């Protein structure tokens, strides 16, 4: 594929992500922060996000598997997850986390489990999308092109 086509694919993909609500304005901010001094900023942040999220989701699963669920701990984990997902701009994950927190306050363990499933689902979706995005970007860069950030203004 040649560079221009790849760039067009990339723009379409990004727009679709924004349209479907997977990402929001925060992600744009992140992209704006990337410049010559930090060329891989977004990739770094996204990988950090993946690592943290895996860990957090494991902790959450273990915490909710206990006989007596410690809702405070669960709430703390969800709060952290919400924070990191909102700073990366993962909108749907963040919304799922907000719902999760409400059920944590009510101490409703079955609804919490449901929410956990929801969060995991959303996370997997957004992870998938982001990985595709990064792969596209790497292909563009490898082919010698540049990421067309300016076409994203909408």
């Amino acid at each position, binding site marked *: 594929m040649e560079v221009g086509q790849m760039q067009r694919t990339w723009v379409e993909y990004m727009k679709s992500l924004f349209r479907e609500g997977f990402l929001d304005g925060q992600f744009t901010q992140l992209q704006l922060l990337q410049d010559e001094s930090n060329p891989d900023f977004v990739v770094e*942040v996204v990988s950090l996000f993946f690592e943290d999220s895996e860990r957090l989701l494991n902790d959450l699963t273990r915490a909710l598997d206990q006989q007596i669920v410690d809702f405070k701990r669960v709430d703390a984990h969800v709060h952290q997850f919400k924070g990191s997902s909102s700073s990366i701009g993962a909108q749907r994950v963040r919304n799922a986390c907000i719902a999760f927190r409400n059920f944590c306050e009510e101490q409703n363990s079955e609804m919490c489990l449901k929410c956990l499933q929801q969060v995991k689902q959303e996370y997997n979706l957004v992870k998938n999308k982001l990985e595709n995005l990064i792969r596209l970007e790497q292909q563009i860069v490898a082919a010698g092109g540049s990421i067309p950030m300016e076409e994203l203004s909408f």
Partner: protein
Amino acid sequence: MLKPAAPGLLFLFLLLISVSADDNGFSRCNCDDEGSLWSIENILDCQKVGDFLIAVAYFSIPIELLYFVSCSNVPFKWVLFEFIAFIVLCGLTHLLNGWTYGPHPFQLMVALTVFKILTALVSCATAITLFTLIPLLLKVKVREFMLKKKAWDLGREVGIIMKQKEAGLHVRMLTQEIRKSLDRHTILYTTLVELSKTLGLQNCAVWMPNQIRTEMNLTHPLNEGNYSSMDNRSIPISDPDVVRIKGSDGVNILRPESALAAASSGGSGEPGPVAAIRMPMLRVCNFKGGTPEIIQACYAILVLVLPGGQPRSWTNQELEIIKVVADQVAVALSHAAVLEESQLMREKLEEQNRALQQAKMNAMMASQARTAFQKVMSDGMKRPMHSILGLISMIQDGNLSTEQQILVDAMMKTSNVLATLINDVMEISTKDSGRFPLEVRSFRLHATIKEAACLAKCLCVYRGFGFSINVDKSLPDHVMGDERRVFQVILHMVGNLLDGNNRKGSVALRFLLDNGSQERNDHKWAAWRHSTIDGDVYIRFEITMNNDASESDGSSSVTPVGARSYASDGIDEGLSFSVCKKLVQLMHGKIWAVPNSQGFPQSMGLILRFQLRPSLSIAISESGESSEHPHSNSLFRGLQVLLADADDVNRAVTRRLIEKLGCCVTTVSSGFECLSIIGPTTSTFQVVLLDLQMPELDGFEVASRIRKFRSRSWPLIVALTASADELLWERCSQIGINGVIQKPLMLQGIANELQRVLVQANKVI
């Protein structure tokens, strides 16, 4: 039953005799004496009567015997029955014999013969059995004798036991009496009284050893008696009787001529036998750990005197009683001793307690008086100070020319210094800690120098000294430090120098930038220099006094204000100099004084370290309130920021954002790390960004700790939080947090808040 029959039978036999007395026709023998009393008829009659009487007796005896046998329990009954048979048969024989004196039939003769033969048989049998019987009877006798002896012995022993029981009762009663009280004298007196009552003594006395153990003194006599001389009352301890009594365990009987006996006997009459026994005097200190040690026991002697004139002497029972009683008394006395000592202890403790209470009251009153005095003093000193400050601030607001402005500023500064000094003095005297909190803020060095120079010039002119000043052009203007303290130190140095010199001269002030061009001999100083962080300046301040060649000793035109008497050797370091030294050390500086020939300070030097502060004020005045470019690099460039956030993603993002603004960011991932990095008192960070929601140590805790333990206004703290609580802002400002930024973080938001916080910080100074 048979007894009433006996007289009947007797009467019957008498009848028989009278009936048979009529028979006098048969042949007789010629064995009589004719014509006298003993005629043949008389003889025969007498014989008849005799026989019958014998028969009667012979019949009555068995009857009695039978009666007795049946009534009582007699051994050898069969022998008695033999005797009865023998007697009955004999009786019958004699009875039948009575009828043979007259004509008698043949049957009578046969019966008589039969009975005689039977009698002979029985009597022989009896004789034989009697022969075997007598030893038995003798044995019985012997046994009876032994039993009697045994009964006598038993009786004696029972007597002894009874006596012992009696003695035991006595002793128990005595002991009870003795142990009723815990007072030593009561115990002894009770002993004496009860013993004399029980044993019936004439006198009873206790001899105690004196303090130095050389003599025994008669301390408790029962009957005083009349003592002829007083020296009967003490006996040397080496008296043989005394030694003997002390050495032995039991009761000793004293000879009547022994001194002890004579002295104890009490007045009236010849004393009886005297007994004495030792009583151990146990003290509390002997009982270490419960049982008394084998130490040189101290003994008292109990002497008992029997009444004379009676043939009485000491029985064993009485001696036993005495021994037991003496032991009991010893025990009771030791109890009493314990009680006495504990009472003594308690009294001593009470007294000490009273004294302590009194001392406490005195101390409290003294401290109250001191506090009251301090309050009065501080009020008295602070009130005029505050009014002066108020007045000066009013003057400051008015329209003044530049010179006047400088003067008024100098006045303000000086009054501030004075107020600080007063506060210090008040606080030192109350806290006695001598700690000065340094308020590190940014101030303008040039202005401070100007004011100090102005003031110094005023003072010199007033004193009649010349004045010159030399300021290095390259001195920075914006530095971080405690302005009031710096001013105080400089003022002190000036004052010190001026006070010490009465003669004419001129004062030279110099402010230099110290770049290490001078040599330092102090190794510690060199070490300090090496460990400095970039961004610090060392300002050197020197003040020297140059005296004129013409020395006019004698009167000086002005009397020095507050002149202190300097010791001839070395420079007298008054309180203010040591205070300055402490301050200078806190500010990581150095102060010294070079004395002249008289010991007055000739020149004084001061080196202080300040942190450079970026010139914020210039940018502020240029940019004004709001700026179009959020990335006003001139504002943020070089700003040292510390970021504390527990979440990795957030931390990375925020770090990048702040770097975009142009600041230098250091990141930590927990509250503890944040606190430890801010560790040294002068921190290198100007702004600290804290995430409020950190595990273990959250942002509030970190902020309050920084404000409490570091300085009150530096570094600036800005909180990052996700919650939109209105009360949050209040809580933050209560703790001392300067600003709050809402998450999610945007570049614009961060820039705005930081700008606001920095502007506000600059306005404060």
